[in-house]
């Protein structure tokens, strides 16, 4: 998704704000430098790493990424605002991404989405008050052979029926994937119990 106007008149970053990126996150971003000819090209990986570490890409983080990649902050905002997967406001610990493209729609996707909205009490791009779930829809997730499908963080749920939703949401491991993970884009962050006890974002 693409061309959305963003209010750029409101100051979004305080001059005396605390730094958002830890040294470890910066180091992770720097590890991508020798993959590309320009520092700008590190921007997409950098935003992935930042979002992974902080949960979203805050304005303050964008300013710091800009400094790290020697870019004007406006370039970072320009890129970050183009892509649907970067959240510029806090999101829940788990993001549910429901496919809304043709196969999933004709196979019953809208009823699944409605059920999730009902159970969580939130709409698209909203977050539950406990900070556990955010909800969004996306165009084709390339899982049409088992539509309706949806992602919970990285985990693909296949052939979901409205009646399955409660069970899926109740499962604490509903975002665990079967494959061995690569930590390339993972940033050092709170995991496990620490994350569960942390105050909800936003």
């Amino acid at each position: 998704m693409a061309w959305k106007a963003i209010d750029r008149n409101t100051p979004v970053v305080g001059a005396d704000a605390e730094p958002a990126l830890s040294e470890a996150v910066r180091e992770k971003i720097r590890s991508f430098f020798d993959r590309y000819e320009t520092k700008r090209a590190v921007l997409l990986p950098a935003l992935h790493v930042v979002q992974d570490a902080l949960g979203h890409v805050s304005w303050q983080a964008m300013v710091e990424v800009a400094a790290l990649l020697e870019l004007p902050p406006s370039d970072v905002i320009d890129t970050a605002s183009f892509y649907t997967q970067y959240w510029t406001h806090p999101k829940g610990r788990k993001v549910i991404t429901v496919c809304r493209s043709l196969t999933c729609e004709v196979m019953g996707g809208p009823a699944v989405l409605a059920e999730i909205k009902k159970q969580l009490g939130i709409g698209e791009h909203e977050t539950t008050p406990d900070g556990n779930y955010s909800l969004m829809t996306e165009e084709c997730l390339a899982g049409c052979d088992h539509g309706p499908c949806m992602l919970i963080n990285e985990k693909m749920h296949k052939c979901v029926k409205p009646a399955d939703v409660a069970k899926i949401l109740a499962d604490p491991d509903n975002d665990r994937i079967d494959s061995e993970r690569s930590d390339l884009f993972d940033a050092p962050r709170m995991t496990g119990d620490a994350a569960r006890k942390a105050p909800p974002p936003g």
Partner: protein
Amino acid sequence: MADSFEPVLLRNVGVENSTALKVYESRGGYRAVRQALKQTPGEITEEVKKANLRGRGGAGFPAGVKWGFLPPNRTVTLLCVNGDESEPPTFSNRVLMEKDPHQLIEGVIIAAYATQARIAYIYLRGEFHEQFHILQKAIDEAYVAGYLGKRVFGGDYSLECYIHRGAGAYVCGEETGLIESIEGKRGCPRIKPPFPAVEGVFHRPTVVNNVETISCIPHIIERGAEWFAGVGPQHSTGPKLFCISGPVNKPGCYEAAMDITVRELIEREDMGGGMQPARKVKAVFPGGVSMGVLTADELDMKMDFDDPQHYGLLGLGTAAAVVIDQDTDIRIVLRNVARFFGTESCGQCTQCREGTAWMYKIASRIADGAGRIEDLDILLDTARNMGMMPGLSICGLPDGATYPIETIVKKFRSELEDAIRAQPDGRVESAMSAVN
């Protein structure tokens, strides 16, 4: 003849642990690349030209010819593998990457060697998470084995291979949108010429090829161009992946020569397995939504590079079919497709940005039950006035938007008109009522 088809690209699917390097090698993997590295890059390009390997990403441009456009006196070349796969309802690249990542990597090494690229970027759409982990693990394995990195297979040639992850944007599948996205920018396609072969990523000569195109290459090297050119019809050579989804018994990704028909893809026991009980075909999008729609009477269309044009479609596209069943309201289909393009236009070209948005608004109004008969003509009129074909846009996205809208309105006009006439007069309010 199609019955005796032996899968090539999918031969490792279903094999236990098929993503592991040693399993891939035990089944004959990484033989082709060893053979290729003994040949000259020119010889490999010739072989790929002779095989007439046409791009699997949608446009069908011959891969060897594309490589031949690289300037001969270049110093740096980059290879980009297009794994953006965002065209609904396509998932064949996903299957290739999650089931047989080493086949892709072997293809990458050969294609990079043939084009003398020292860096290969595999552009992976942001929604591919498990596929990323699987592919990255395979790349790591290939590095450890000495198949990637400095002096691959102990020879003089070196190649770095990186995955570049996108973050949600259909237009990044367009090759110059992809290039911009690798450079860390919005995925806004570039005006061509210059074509990527002359000026691509970081202004360097760049080759962009689809995941399936690249996955074919080891087999061309190993079995020879004649073998490849002998599979399927004359201008549509080689094994090809077909996706089928919707209310069929066995939705999935199947491999065949390009001589099968849409009907076979739906009905054959070793493919779609027929419609689910009590379901009947109303319409099929045979090549990804952007190619346009077929009616139930048009299922004898051949899934090759030429026949779709005879049915008013844009082309073979991604060869991914979705079946719409008899009980689905065509207005829902119209709105879904219009929304896709309305939200995925990058917004650089006025007629694409505005036209796709209008079509979405009008289609929504119709689907909400507040349509007007003249809306159908407004849709056709809008569709005719956007895209690369009339020379109005930078990339092909609006052409992909016009074909489904035009074919739905033309081929299902009476159903749409009936639905509009059956609307209870003046009682349905649509948020889009005011839009002209």
